[in-house]
C-alpha cells in the first residue's frame, strides 16, 4: 500500500482536479461545495500520509510523470523537506471547514460565487503541494504561479474596499518575483542545458569556470524572487495588508502556508548550489542572516503598535519568517533543522491564531483589540486556543514554538555568531510584549462594547478546527523530537558538501 508509486501523482492531481470539479458538482446545490472540497483534501491527506511514511522508511524517492524517465521527463521528487505537505493538507482542510460558516457570513461574497472560493482554495493548496514535491525547475515555476495567482484572487475575495488594492499590490510584487524565478530558470537552463534539479546539480559542478557569473546572477534572482514570496524585510511590504484584509480562513492559509513556499524554494536553491559546489555561499548566508535578524526585530516591533488583531498577526508572520531565514543563513546543522521544523510548527501556530481571530470577528464583527476587550469571558474556548497559540509563538516551553527557536539559537552560538542568538531572544521578548497585550485585552480589561460579553461561543465547524490546532501546538511541543529527527537526514545531506 505504502509502496504504491502513484500516490505521488495523486497528491498533486487530487486537489487540482478537485478545484475544477467543485463548481460543477455544486451547480445544483452550492452547500455541497465545502464538503466536496473537504473530501478532496481527505484523499490528498491519505496520499500525503503514505508518502511521508515511505520517505521515513527509505529516504528520498522519485516518480517519473508519465513514465518518462528523468532527466528528460518531468520528475516528482519527495524528500524530507517535502513532508511539509502534511501541514498543507492539515491546515488546508481545517481552513476549508472553518470557511463553511465564514463564507456564508461574508456580506461582500455573493452566494452563487461561494463554490469558486473553494475552487481557488483547492488550486492554491494543490499548487503548494506540487511546488514542494517537484523535482523540475520549470515545474517549480509553474506551481509557483498556480499558487500565487489563486492567492492574489483569494485576497480580493473579501470585497472590503481596500482588499482589491492590497491584492493588486500583492500581485505586482508577486508577479515581479515570479518573473525573477523564471529568468533564473532560463539562465540555469542556458548554462547547464537541463531543468531537472538533480541533473542541474551534477552539471553545474562541471560547467566551465566562465559560467560562474551567470550562476551568481541566477542565484541572486532566485533568492530575491523567493524572498518576496517569503516576505523578508526589504520586500515584505505587500504582506501586512494582504494577510490582514483577506477572510480569516484565507489568512490562515496565506500566513501559515503560502509564505513558506518561499522558504521551501530557498531550500531547493541551497540544495542545488551546495550540491554543485560551484559557488561559495558565505556572502549570501551573511545577507540572509542580517535580513532575517532585521525581519525578526522589525516585524515584532511593528506588531506591538497594531490595534487590529489580524494586522498584528500579519506582522508577527514577518518576524517568524525572519527566524526561519536566519536558521538557513546560519547554515549549521542545528539551525537548518530548527528552521525547517519551524516551517511546520509556525504553520500550525499561525493557523490557530488566525482562525481564532476569525471566530471573534465572525461572532462580534469587531477586529481591533480595543473593541474586542472582554471577549475572553464570552468565548472562553476560542480564547484559550488563542492563548495557547500566543504562548507557542513566543516560544515558551513546552509548546511547539520552543524547540525550533531553541535549535536556531543553539545554531547561532555554534556558528560563533552569538549576536544573532541575542537578536533572536530580543525578538521573542517583543513578541512576548504584544501577546501579553492581547491576552490582557481579552481577559482583564473592561469591555467597551457591552454586547461583546453576550456573544455565543464559535460554531462547531470553527471551534473544532481551532481546538484541534491548539492541541497540536501543545502536542508538537511535547513530541517535538519527532519532526526534528525526521528532518535531520535532509539537513545533513544538504550541508554535507560544506564538510560540517
Amino acid at each position: 500500500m505504502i509502496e504504491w508509486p502513484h500516490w505521488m501523482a495523486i497528491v498533486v492531481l487530487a486537489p487540482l482536479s478537485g478545484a475544477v470539479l467543485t463548481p460543477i458538482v455544486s451547480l445544483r446545490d452550492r452547500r455541497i461545495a465545502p464538503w466536496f472540497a473537504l473530501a478532496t483534501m481527505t484523499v490528498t491527506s491519505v496520499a500525503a500520509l503514505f508518502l511521508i511514511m515511505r520517505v521515513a522508511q527509505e529516504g528520498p524517492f522519485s516518480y517519473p510523470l508519465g513514465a518518462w524517465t528523468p532527466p528528460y521527463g518531468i520528475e516528482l521528487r519527495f524528500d524530507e523537506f517535502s513532508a511539509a505537505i502534511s501541514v498543507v493538507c492539515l491546515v488546508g482542510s481545517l481552513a476549508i471547514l472553518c470557511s463553511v460558516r465564514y463564507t456564508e457570513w461574508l456580506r461582500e461574497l455573493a452566494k452563487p460565487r461561494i463554490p469558486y472560493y473553494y475552487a481557488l482554495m483547492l488550486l492554491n493548496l494543490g499548487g503548494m503541494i506540487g511546488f514542494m514535491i517537484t523535482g523540475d525547475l520549470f515545474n517549480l515555476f509553474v506551481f509557483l504561479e498556480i499558487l500565487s495567482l489563486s492567492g492574489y484572487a483569494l485576497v480580493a475575495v473579501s470585497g472590503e474596499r481596500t482588499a482589491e488594492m492590497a491584492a493588486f499590490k500583492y500581485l505586482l510584487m508577486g508577479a515581479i518575483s515570479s518573473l525573477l524565478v523564471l529568468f533564473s530558470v532560463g539562465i540555469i537552463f542556458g548554462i547547464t542545458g537541463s531543468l531537472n534539479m538533480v541533473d542541474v546539480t551534477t552539471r553545474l559542478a562541471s560547467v566551465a569556470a566562465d559560467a560562474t557569473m551567470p550562476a551568481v546572477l541566477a542565484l541572486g534572482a532566485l533568492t530575491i524572487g523567493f524572498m518576496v514570496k517569503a516576505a523578508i524585510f526589504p520586500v515584505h511590504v505587500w504582506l501586512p495588508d494582504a494577510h490582514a484584509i483577506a477572510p480569516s480562513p484565507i489568512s490562515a492559509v496565506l500566513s501559515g502556508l503560502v509564505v513558506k513556499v518561499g522558504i521551501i524554494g530557498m531550500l531547493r536553491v541551497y540544495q542545488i548550489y551546495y550540491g554543485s559546489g560551484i559557488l561559495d555561499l558565505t556572502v549570501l548566508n551573511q545577507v540572509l542572516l542580517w535580513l532575517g535578524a532585521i525581519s525578526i526585530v522589525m516585524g515584532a516591533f511593528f506588531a506591538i503598535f497594531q490595534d487590529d488583531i489580524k494586522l498584528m498577526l500579519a506582522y508577527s508572520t514577518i518576524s517568524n519568517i525572519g527566524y526561519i531565514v536566519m536558521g538557513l543563513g546560519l547554515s549549521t546543522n542545528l539551525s537548518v533543522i530548527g528552521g525547517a521544523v519551524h516551517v511546520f510548527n509556525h504553520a500550525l501556530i499561525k493557523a490557530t491564531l488566525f482562525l481564532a481571530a476569525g471566530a471573534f470577528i465572525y461572532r462580534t464583527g469587531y477586529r481591533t483589540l480595543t473593541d474586542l476587550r472582554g471577549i475572553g469571558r464570552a468565548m472562553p474556548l476560542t480564547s484559550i486556543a488563542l492563548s495557547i497559540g500566543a504562548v507557542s509563538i513566543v516560544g515558551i516551553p513546552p509548546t511547539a514554538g520552543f524547540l525550533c527557536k531553541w535549535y536556531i539559537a543553539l545554531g547561532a552560538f555554534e556558528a560563533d555568531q552569538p549576536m544573532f542568538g541575542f537578536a533572536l531572544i530580543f525578538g521573542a521578548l517583543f513578541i512576548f510584549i504584544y501577546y501579553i497585550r492581547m491576552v490582557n485585552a481579552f481577559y482583564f480589561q473592561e469591555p467597551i462594547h457591552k454586547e461583546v460579553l453576550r456573544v455565543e461561543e464559535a460554531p462547531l465547524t470553527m471551534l473544532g478546527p481551532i481546538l484541534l490546532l491548539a492541541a497540536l501546538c501543545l502536542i508538537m511541543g511535547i513530541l517535538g523530537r519527532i519532526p526534528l529527527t525526521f528532518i535531520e537526514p535532509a539537513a545533513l545531506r544538504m550541508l554535507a558538501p560544506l564538510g560540517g
Partner: protein
Amino acid sequence: MLEALWHNIDYVASVVLFCIGLYILIAKNNLIKKFLGLNIMETAVFAFIVTIGVIEGGDAPIMGHGAQAPFHSPIPHALVLTGIVVAVSTTALALSLIIRIYRQCGTIEADELREME
C-alpha cells in the same frame, strides 16, 4: 568589453527591455500603465529564454523531409509557451482587479488611491 556586448546583443536587448518595463512599473501612476510595464518585463524574459535555444545556422526542430541538424533547441520554446499562458492569466486577473478598484473608488491613479486609504 564592447565586443562582448555586441556579441551578446540579444541578451543586452532583453536586459534593456526589462529595465524599461521596471521603470514604467515604478514611475507611472496609472495602474494600467504599471501593469503594461510588467507585461514588457515579461516579454523581455520570454525573449531572453527564446534566444538561449538559438544556435547559429540552426534549423527549425521539425522532423520531415530535408530536416538537417543542427536544430534550435525546442525546449525554451515550450517553456515560453507555458510562460505566456501564465502571463495571460496574470494579466486577466490584474485587469479584473483594476476594474473592481475603479468601480469602488472611481479612480485608478495610484496617488489618489493612496489618499483615499
